[in-house]
């Protein structure tokens, strides 16, 4: 794969005589192929499942040091991979006074007004802004950082909107917030020619999609597993690097967070809205998320649910490998990161082990994303004296692990549609999962027909080790109950969640978009 890595092509975008190098450019923010996880596996599946289409991958990372080696072997239909790190955006340059393009700045402000009004953005405004961003005759990064027009914009907006007293905080927030956009516009310009775009999130990747789609006039598809904007909001509500002004006089409880925090939240909301507006199709994994996208500004007619699927046949063998006796092993398959709430799993294990001292808890998943959290989890295990019961197995081939598990546990505080539940079902393992994303649908069933199959496990509320442990103990301690759950899960997955269904839907979506693409068909020799 090496020759593909870091390959950048400096093609002139407007010249369509250049042959596209791939059908679809996948825009990936912090996932495949450098980070393992649900989204990444899904991408890998799509790439492998649609071998007749070709792909170019554009990876956007945060800081370079957070990513190690490639975690997946890229299939042959991946024709291009380029990697960019957003944190490497610099606010430096040559600070020289410059006027700045007044006309382009006016368009840019029109765009911001539309955000503030929650209006639909006029296509011509969007086009003007994204074609001028980073262009020498538009608004370059230097224009943004040093020009008088930029100063005028910042001061006027501050006066008009900002409710927080500190101008210098506002000033730097605006700069830090927008600087990455110039990097994105640069990426968009230099990216190789493709026939359509598919972004796996909104956010920066979504914006890159908007830019490329605007600049090249090609279709943009959005698939969201989680809801990017929502996740950002939670991060931002907590972020310590934003300081809220404190009302030193009042003892009242104020719900309002500071303007700058709000500004950051609105920034990501705006990125989402632009992506939704520009997209030709918006796909979510389950109905809850589809509703959410619509609230966040996605036009309803573009929205569609395509659930993930697995290949139940692959797991038949695993079911046969299962030992006679029910193993008292609780498995949690997932990256060791806070959103998976591994700690609650560990706490639950403390309770489980009080009642079932020979029980084991296996944490199966890569530990390289958030080393401090991993450390916290490990010291939590120590402080509970659970060193002999709870094991961190790192990344494993799930086929090796699944037959040894007695129960699948999912403690996530947020999920979309976790594949591990489907895989566990297929391997004949019931699940205890938190009430997030589509977990309730997966465990208890969605439609009447589905519900009739029975529960494939238990749904518990999040961050509740007691309840989690209780549910696990009930299933592991009651063989009949366990068998019933196993049966229901198996039925559910093969009836409603197969890979074949997902592939065919995506193939149709891609072909439909490619047909509309203004770019000539790929010459596959």
């Amino acid at each position: 794969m090496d020759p593909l890595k870091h390959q950048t092509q400096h093609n002139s975008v407007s010249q369509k005589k250049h042959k596209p190098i791939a059908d679809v450019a996948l825009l990936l923010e912090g996932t495949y192929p450098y980070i393992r996880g649900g989204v990444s596996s899904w991408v890998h599946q799509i790439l492998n499942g649609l071998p007749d289409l070709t792909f170019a991958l554009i990876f956007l990372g945060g800081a370079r040091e957070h990513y190690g080696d490639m975690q997946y072997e890229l299939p042959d239909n991946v024709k291009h991979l380029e990697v960019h790190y957003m944190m490497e955006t610099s606010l430096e340059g040559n600070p020289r006074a410059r006027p700045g393009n007044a006309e382009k700045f006016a368009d840019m402000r029109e765009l911001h007004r539309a955000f503030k009004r929650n209006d639909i953005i006029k296509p011509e405004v969007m086009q003007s802004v994204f074609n001028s961003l980073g262009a020498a005759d538009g608004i370059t990064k230097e224009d943004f950082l040093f020009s008088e027009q930029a100063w005028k914009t910042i001061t006027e907006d501050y006066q008009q909107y900002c409710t927080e007293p500190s101008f210098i905080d506002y000033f730097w927030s605006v700069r830090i917030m927008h600087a990455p956009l110039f990097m994105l516009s640069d990426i968009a310009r230099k990216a190789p020619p493709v026939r359509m775009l598919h972004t796996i999130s909104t956010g920066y990747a979504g914006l890159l999609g908007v830019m490329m789609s605007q600049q090249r006039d090609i279709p943009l598809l959005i698939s969201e597993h989680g809801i990017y904007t929502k996740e950002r909001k939670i991060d931002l509500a907590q972020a310590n690097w934003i300081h809220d002004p404190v009302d030193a006089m009042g003892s009242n409880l104020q719900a309002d967070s500071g303007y700058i925090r709000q500004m950051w939240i609105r920034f990501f909301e705006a990125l989402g809205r632009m992506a939704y507006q520009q997209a030709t199709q918006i796909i979510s994994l389950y109905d809850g998320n589809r509703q959410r996208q619509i609230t966040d500004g996605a036009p309803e007619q573009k929205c569609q649910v395509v659930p993930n699927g697995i290949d139940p046949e692959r797991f038949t063998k695993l079911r046969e490998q299962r030992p006679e006796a029910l193993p008292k092993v609780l498995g949690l398959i997932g990256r060791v990161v806070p959103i998976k709430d591994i700690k609650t799993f560990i706490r639950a294990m403390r309770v489980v082990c009080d009642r079932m001292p020979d029980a084991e808890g296996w944490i199966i998943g890569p530990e390289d994303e958030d080393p401090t959290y991993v450390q916290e989890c490990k010291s939590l295990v120590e402080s509970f004296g659970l060193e002999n019961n709870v094991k961190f197995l790192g990344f494993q081939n799930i086929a090796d692990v699944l037959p040894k598990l007695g129960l699948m546990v999912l403690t996530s505080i947020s999920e979309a549609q976790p594949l591990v539940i489907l895989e566990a079902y297929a391997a004949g393992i019931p699940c205890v999962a938190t009430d997030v994303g589509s977990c309730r649908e997966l465990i208890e069933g969605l439609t009447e027909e589905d519900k009739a199959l029975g529960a494939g496990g238990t749904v518990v509320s999040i961050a509740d080790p007691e309840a989690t442990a209780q549910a696990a103990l009930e299933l592991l301690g009651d063989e009949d109950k366990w068998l019933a759950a196993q049966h229901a899960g198996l039925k559910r997955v093969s009836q409603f969640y197969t890979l074949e269904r997902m592939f065919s839907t995506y193939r149709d979506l891609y072909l439909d978009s490619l047909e509309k693409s203004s770019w000539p068909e790929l010459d596959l020799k």
Partner: protein
Amino acid sequence: MAGKWLVIQAIFLEIAGLSLFFYLDSSVASLWSYLFSHFCASLLFSLFILSLLPKHYQRPIIPTYFALVTIQFSIPVLGSIGTVLGILLALYLPRHRHSAPWREVNIPDLPYQPINISSEALYSHGGLTQVLREASDPAKRLKAVMASKHINPRDHVRILREALKDPVDDVRLLAYAMLDDKEKKITERMNQHQKELVKAKGEHHARLTLVLAQDYWEMAYLGLAQGGVRQHFLNKAIQLLQPLVEYPADAMACRMLGRIYLELEQWDVANGYFLRALALGVEQKHILPYLAETSFRMRRYKKVQEYIQRYVDTGTADPGFIPVMNYWLKGASVGSS
């Protein structure tokens, strides 16, 4: 003394040079002879001054010496006198910079910092839970979670736990993130203290043990840990504190143990520790309310009344305590407060 000889030689050389200079009637030869003797005098006298400089001014020695020689050579006689009086003397007489206890400042301008006071609902402590349970608009519940930041930590955690069961993902996620943050901070502190504890000795060790026990206690008390985990933390704290209440017993450790056992609902043990803490000199106002509680739990109502009376007599009773006082001391004399 070498210093004395240095000075005498330097002065002699300088006088000799000067008299030669004037004796030879300012000829070129006299200039050279003067320059030579003046240079030697400067070298010697600089050596003398160098030896008298406060120690830390002597290093680095070579540039210091050169500087001294340069000044004295360039300004004959006057330079030497000036260096002794103007620099050397001044170095020994630094002005004491007292930090003034107060400073005159001008009346500042009115602050141009209009913090935008939201016209939206402000919640009262009790109202937050209400909003969280009743409000149908998720945005409202979200705001209630945000606002709960400002109330006392224990109630905050309680509200966040409540919010974790919210049907809407956003509210749950926010509450979770806030809880996680709180816990992270305490855990970090714990790890830090644990690390320090290994190295600490004697008095410091005892103090750190107390601090670490406090961390465990806080984790349980705030409600960040529950069920078995909470039990575990409390036990951990007891384990840490136990050695501290052996003789000589630590008063604060006794008090904390009392609170832990109170939390564990072992009333009589708690009562014992509170009594010990009181005997060891912990201020009455910090102990008496707890004693009243343990006595109440143990159904020794006479004792309850007695402790409350004593608490009131300290004159430091919390205003929130008034209904309790009124109930228990009905008929009895309510203290001067």
